[in-house]
């Protein structure tokens, strides 16, 4: 099916993009890689009257270091992240997540910012972004603010972004922590039935910091806080890891659907958490 008619704008600056968004309010949508928005428009699930393509806005894409923080522009494609040597060296977790997304064609067009802003409950990046305690820098008519990943995902397809705000950067403090991503992939769509990302650090034989991010299981991605608490300050051993994994689904309102029952998702959360912890912590 063809999408409903819409007007297309390709602003050359961020200011112009924000002005267009503010002017058209609810009727406008940002276009990034188009790999979530366009399929929805073709089925007329979404019928924005105005598209604001941010592909020509300078400085929204690229990977750089700002002090110890790894900064990824929102328009950076999944593929650029996958192939970046800086990411491989500095943030093993992100490098590991990228190849899990769709196929090469999807990764060449789709962007990390588009994925996060879309907040599909089965998308891969949110698990890693939560585990890494990333900050999401957004820019709107009233200036910029940084939203902690924990506060960003509100519900299904719903984030803390206002309609006239642009997600500009993903900022990852302490990117170098050990990481691992485990995913049970839906065979048809490639999206996560459940995905678990772990970022961790050990000091003097104990777990000094840990983030466990879970996607696919419920209506929005979440941190497995109960499981993290089990490990913090304790040595990583097969026993402590299993004890933690058993707590990984606490507080999750798991989704039952055609592909997996809620019980099965809960089970996957625990198993995949155990595996990801094991690889991230080397136990």
């Amino acid at each position, binding site marked *: 099916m063809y999408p409903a008619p819409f007007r297309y704008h390709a602003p050359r600056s961020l200011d112009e993009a924000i002005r267009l968004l503010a002017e058209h309010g609810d009727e406008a949508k940002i276009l990034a890689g188009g790999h979530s928005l366009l399929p929805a428009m073709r089925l007329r*699930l979404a019928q924005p009257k105005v598209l604001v393509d941010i592909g020509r806005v300078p400085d929204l894409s690229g990977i750089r270091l700002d002090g110890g923080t790894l900064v990824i522009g929102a328009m950076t494609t999944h593929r650029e992240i996958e192939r970046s040597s800086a990411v491989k060296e500095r943030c093993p977790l992100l490098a590991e997540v990228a190849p899990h997304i769709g196929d090469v064609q999807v990764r060449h067009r789709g962007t990390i910012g588009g994925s996060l802003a*879309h907040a599909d409950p089965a998308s891969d990046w949110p698990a890693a972004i939560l585990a890494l305690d990333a900050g999401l820098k957004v820019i709107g008519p009233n200036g910029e603010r940084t939203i902690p990943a924990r506060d960003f995902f509100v519900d*299904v397809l719903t984030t803390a972004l206002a309609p006239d705000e642009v997600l500009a950067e993903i900022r990852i403090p302490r990117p170098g922590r050990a990481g691992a991503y485990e995913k049970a992939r839906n065979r048809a769509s490639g999206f996560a039935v459940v995905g678990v990302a772990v970022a961790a650090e050990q000091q003097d034989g104990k777990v000094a910091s840990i983030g466990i991010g879970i996607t696919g299981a419920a*209506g929005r991605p979440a941190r497995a806080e109960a499981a993290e608490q089990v490990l913090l300050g304790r040595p990583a051993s097969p026993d402590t890891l299993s004890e933690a994994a058993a707590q990984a689904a606490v507080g999750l309102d798991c989704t039952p659907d055609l*592909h997996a029952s809620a019980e099965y998702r809960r089970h996957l959360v625990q198993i995949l958490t155990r595996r990801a912890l094991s690889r991230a912590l080397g136990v």
Partner: protein
Amino acid sequence: MRIEGSYRFDAPPERVWAVLQDPAALAACIPGCQTLEPVAEHEFAATLSVGVAAFKGTYNGRVRVAELDPPHRYDLHVEGSGRTGFVKGVGHISLEPDGGSATQVKVVGDAQVGGPVLSVASRLVVPTAKMLMNQFFAAMQRWLRASPM
């Protein structure tokens, strides 16, 4: 698809029952409800305009209340369709006293969903339905708190 939820209200079952059956409260609390008109006893025709992020749609449907056992339980039959798909289902709703002055409302629903929405977004259907249901009951809780005894 199966959908379940449980909601606590700070009022006894009789009062919760009354709001849950009140057309004015329903019209105000059903997410995106544009019109809700009685077509028969315990039956309404509704127009909803539901938007979740960029996904927006207008749905026409019918809501019928059956098996009323005040203030304990009732069934809610829902049928609706729009350009993006259709839904047809029934929710079993029960009210249980929780202490002296509160009520636990439980919903167990079963619905069929079909149409174009499934080809791109089957994984979104259940969590979206759950989100809308949560919004509905949260609005009902506010409505009850705001309405005088």
